[in-house]
C-alpha cells in the first residue's frame, strides 16, 4: 500500500516536496501575510470599538470598499468551480493540472467574500437576527442561501477529487507529524482505490460537476441583485445578473492564470503547467473578456445614448468627472490592454515590429515617461498648473497618454511575444486589479449621484474616501485569501496527482502506474 518514491515520476516528487516545509521565501511570505491579516484584525477591532464611523462611509455613500471586496471575491470565486466543472464535463484533458488550483481559489475567495458583509455590518452582534427574524424577500437572505449552498458545493467539489491524493499522502506521511497523519487519515475516508470506491467517486464527481454550474451562476447573479434590486440609477438594470456573471468569470479566469504562474514559479511545476496551459487559459480569458466587454458596453452605452435625467449624474461622473480616471483605467487597463496583450503578440506581424527603430523600447519608454510627467505636472493643484497656458493643454491629456501608451505597447510587443507566460501573467494581474476597481466604480458613483441632490451634508459626508481602516481590512482580506491558498497548497498537492496520471500518455506518465499507486 505504501507509495514509494521510486514509483513516482520526477515531477511528482517535486510536487510532493512542496508539501514539506518551505524555504525562507515561504516563511517570509507567511510572515508578511500574517502581519497584514493581524493589522486588518486590529483595524476591525477599531471599527468594532468606535463603529462604522471610522470608515469613510456616510449616509450618502453607505456602501464602499467592503461591498466592493465582497463582489470582487465572490467574482473571483466564480471561475474555479465553474470552469473546472465545464472542463470536466466536456472532457478537456489539458485541465487536469489546473483544476485543483482553480477549485481552491473558489474555496479561499468564497471564505473571504462571505466575511466581507459581516465586516460591513453595523451590528455584527445581531448576526443571529438573520436566523431569528430572517425575511426571504430580502436579497440578503438569497445571498446567504446561495453562498452557503455554493460554499458547501464547492468545498465538496474541491475535496472529493482530492480523496485519492489524500490517501497517497496518508501513506507517505505515515512518519510525519501526527496531526498531519490524523488529518489525512480522516480525510482519506479509507480510500484504497477499490473498484467500488472508484465507481462511487466517479458518480459523485459526475453529480457535482453538473450541480455546481447552476449554483455558481446563481451565486453571482444574486450578488448582483444586491445592487440591481434597488431603484438607483446605474444599478437599476436588467442585465446586472449576466453582466456580473461574465465579469466574475473574466476576473476568476485571470485569477487562475495568476495562480498558475505563481505556483509554477514557486513550486517549480514547469512539467505540469506548460506554456500551452497559459495559452489555453489565455484563450479563455480572451473569450470571457470579450463577453464581459460586450455586457459592459451595453450597460453604459444604452443609458449614455439617452442621457435620461436620473442617469446623467453618474454617467457624467464616470465618463468625464471625478471617477473618469478610475473608469477608463478599468476599461483600458483592466479589459482592453489585457485582451490585447493576450492576442496581438501572437500575430506574425510582431516579428517585424522589432526591427523598426522607432519602436525600440527605449524611445517608447522615454515618450511614455515624458507623457506621464507632463500629466503629473499639469495636474490640478501643482504649481505649474497655475500657469495660464497649462489649463488649455488639459484636454490633450487623454490623447497624449493614449499616443504614448500605444507607442509603448507596440514597442513592447516583440518582448511579449518572446515571453508568453510573463505576458499572460501580467495581463491576468491587470485584469484582477481592474476588476476590483470596476466593482468600486459600479458601486460608488451611483451612490454619489442619488435622485435627490446631496445637500446639507455635514463636512466630509458628501463624498467618499476610504480610510486606513477600510484599506487595512481590504489588504487583510487579500492577504487572508493568499494565506488560505498558500496553506492549502502546503497541506494538499496543488496539482492533482492521480488525475494527471490518468491523463493521456503525452500529458503525463501513463495510466497503469496510476492504478498501481492508487491501490
Amino acid at each position: 500500500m505504501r507509495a514509494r518514491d521510486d514509483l513516482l515520476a520526477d515531477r511528482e516528487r517535486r510536487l510532493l516536496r512542496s508539501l514539506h516545509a518551505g524555504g525562507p521565501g515561504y516563511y517570509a511570505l507567511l510572515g508578511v501575510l500574517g502581519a497584514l491579516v493581524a493589522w486588518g484584525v486590529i483595524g476591525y477591532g477599531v471599527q468594532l470599538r468606535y463603529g462604522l464611523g471610522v470608515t469613510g462611509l456616510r449616509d450618502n455613500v453607505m456602501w464602499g470598499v467592503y461591498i466592493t471586496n465582497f463582489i470582487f471575491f465572490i467574482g473571483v470565486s466564480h471561475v474555479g468551480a465553474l470552469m473546472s466543472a465545464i472542463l470536466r464535463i466536456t472532457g478537456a484533458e489539458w485541465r487536469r493540472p489546473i483544476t485543483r488550483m482553480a477549485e481552491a481559489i473558489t474555496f479561499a475567495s468564497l471564505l473571504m467574500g462571505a466575511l466581507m458583509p459581516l465586516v460591513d455590518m453595523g451590528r455584527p452582534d445581531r448576526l443571529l437576527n438573520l436566523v431569528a427574524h430572517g425575511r426571504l424577500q430580502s436579497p440578503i437572505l438569497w445571498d446567504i442561501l446561495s453562498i452557503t449552498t455554493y460554499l458547501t458545493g464547492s468545498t465538496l467539489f474541491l475535496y472529493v477529487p482530492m480523496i485519492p491524493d489524500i490517501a497517497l499522502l496518508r501513506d507517505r506521511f505515515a512518519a510525519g507529524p501526527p496531526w498531519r497523519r490524523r488529518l489525512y487519515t480522516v480525510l482519506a475516508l479509507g480510500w484504497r482505490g477499490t473498484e467500488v470506491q472508484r465507481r462511487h467517486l466517479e458518480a459523485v464527481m459526475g453529480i457535482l460537476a453538473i450541480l455546481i454550474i447552476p449554483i455558481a451562476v446563481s451565486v453571482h447573479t444574486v450578488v448582483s441583485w444586491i445592487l440591481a434590486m434597488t431603484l438607483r440609477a446605474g444599478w437599476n438594470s436588467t442585465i446586472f445578473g449576466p453582466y456580473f456573471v461574465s465579469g466574475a468569470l473574466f476576473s476568476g479566469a485571470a485569477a487562475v492564470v495568476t495562480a498558475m504562474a505563481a505556483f509554477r514559479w514557486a513550486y517549480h511545476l514547469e512539467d505540469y503547467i506548460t506554456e500551452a496551459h497559459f495559452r489555453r487559459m489565455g484563450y479563455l480569458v480572451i473569450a470571457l473578456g470579450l463577453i464581459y466587454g460586450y455586457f459592459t458596453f451595453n450597460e453604459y452605452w444604452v443609458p449614455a445614448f439617452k442621457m435620461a435625467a436620473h442617469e446623467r449624474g453618474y454617467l457624467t461622473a464616470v465618463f468625464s468627472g471625478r471617477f473618469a480616471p478610475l473608469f477608463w483605467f478599468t476599461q483600458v487597463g483592466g479589459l482592453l490592454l489585457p485582451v490585447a496583450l493576450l492576442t496581438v503578440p501572437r500575430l506574425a506581424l510582431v516579428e517585424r515590429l522589432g526591427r523598426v527603430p522607432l519602436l525600440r523600447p527605449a524611445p517608447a519608454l522615454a515618450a511614455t515617461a515624458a507623457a506621464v510627467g507632463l500629466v503629473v505636472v499639469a495636474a490640478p493643484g501643482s504649481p505649474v498648473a497655475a500657469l495660464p497656458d497649462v489649463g488649455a493643454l488639459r484636454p490633450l491629456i487623454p490623447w497624449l497618454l493614449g499616443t504614448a501608451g500605444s507607442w509603448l505597447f507596440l514597442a513592447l510587443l516583440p518582448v511579449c511575444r518572446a515571453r508568453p507566460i510573463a505576458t499572460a501573467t501580467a495581463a491576468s494581474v491587470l485584469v484582477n486589479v481592474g476588476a476590483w476597481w470596476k466593482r468600486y466604480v459600479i458601486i460608488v458613483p451611483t451612490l454619489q449621484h442619488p435622485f435627490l441632490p446631496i445637500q446639507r451634508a455635514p463636512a466630509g459626508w458628501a463624498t467618499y474616501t476610504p480610510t486606513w481602516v477600510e484599506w487595512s481590512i481590504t489588504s487583510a482580506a487579500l492577504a487572508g485569501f493568499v494565506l488560505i491558498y498558500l496553506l492549502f497548497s502546503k497541506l494538499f498537492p496543488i496539482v492533482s496527482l492521480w488525475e494527471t496520471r490518468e491523463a493521456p500518455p503525452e500529458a503525463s506518465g501513463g495510466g497503469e502506474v496510476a492504478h498501481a499507486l492508487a491501490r
Partner: protein
Amino acid sequence: MRWPGSAALLAALALTASAASAAARLHLVLAPEEGGGLQVVAVVTDAPGSPREGIPVTFRARTAFGWLPLGEGVTDASGRAVLPLPAGAPYPEIEAQTADDPPARAVLALDRRAAAQPAVRPGRRTLHALSPQPGLISPYPVPPLALLGVLVGAIWATYGYIVFLLTRIAAGR
C-alpha cells in the same frame, strides 16, 4: 361600503337643553337615504319651538386632527337644512353650527368604532404586538416561496446524497 340596516330609519334626536339660548335652538337628526347614504338634518327652531327659515348652517365633521367643513345650508320653511352624507363616511361625529348670534351648535356622535390597533400588511397577524411580518411584503402578487424551497431543497438533498456516497466510499462498499 354600506351602512348596515340602511333600509330602516336610524333615528335619533338631539335636542337642545340650553334654556339660555335666546336666538335659536338647533338639533340634528340623522335620516337614511335611498342607496345607503345618510342625511344629516339640522333643525333650527326658535325658543317657542317654531321653525326658523333662512338661517345659514355650517356642517363639520370631526376628523383625526380637526373639524372638517362638510358643507353649508340654509334652513327652509320647515327650519331644516340638509347635509347628504355619502355612504360609508367615516366620521365619528358631525357638528352643525348656525351663523346666528349667538351661534348654536349641536354634535351628533356616530359612534364609529375606534380605529383598530394598526396592524401590518398584508393582513398577516403577527405573533407579538408590533412584530414585523415575516412574509413577503408587496402590494403586488409575489411568487410562492415554495418554488424557491423546492429548488434549494433539491440542491441540498443532492448534497445529502453525495455525503451518503462518501460514507459508502469510507465503508468501502
